[in-house]
């Protein structure tokens, strides 16, 4: 039975570009070889990093309802702290 140890040799599933640069060509080649070796075995999942940067839109979950509820309060806060606004 072939066991496929994804945790062995292979790096984390997601690797940022900077990290790839840091390990250099030798390291990249090594992980490429490891990746090839693993992909030859059946039942392995190959994970490729997305070519676009991942942007997490944190503001998307804020509802208009909440904003309207907080508007008066925030207005007062801004007025009372005019030195930092």
């Amino acid at each position, binding site marked *: 039975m072939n066991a496929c140890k994804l945790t062995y040799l292979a790096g984390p599933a997601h690797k940022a570009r900077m990290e790839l640069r840091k390990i250099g060509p030798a390291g990249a080649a090594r992980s490429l070889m490891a990746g090839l070796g693993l992909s030859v075995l059946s039942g392995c999942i190959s994970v490729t990093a997305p070519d676009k940067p991942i942007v997490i839109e*944190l*503001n998307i979950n804020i509802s*208009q309802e909440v*904003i309207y509820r*907080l*508007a008066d*309060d925030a207005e007062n*806060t801004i007025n009372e702290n*005019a030195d930092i606004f």
Partner: protein
Amino acid sequence: MAGLMHPLKRTHIAFAAALGAVALAGMAVPALAQRDPAYEAARSAGQIGEQMDGYLGIVGASTPSLERLVKDINIKRRALYAEKARAANATLEEYAFTAGCLNIARTAAGEKYQAPGGAWQTRTGAPPQRDPRCP
């Protein structure tokens, strides 16, 4: 002890306490502090702008003094947002975003603000481009 009082009496006491609190709050209004001249100058020069998230950002080239200025104010804003958000039962991000809407609306002509697409804009006499959720 309060539990033994007549309900009407309790209401009166609560009302009196509320009146007292209002009077105290009225007296405790501090002289409104104004913007630091360096902050005011950086704003009008368009070196720093209001972001959608409720904080200040550096618009063009960064300098150590600009960074210090922005960081200092943003730390104070964050502490204030956190405190007020807790009191209003909202998250820090919700409160900060709401303040961001207002901060952008209050920019003066010539000052910079962040449009919904993320790009910096210069405020003109026209209303600023804001997130559709802004009040």
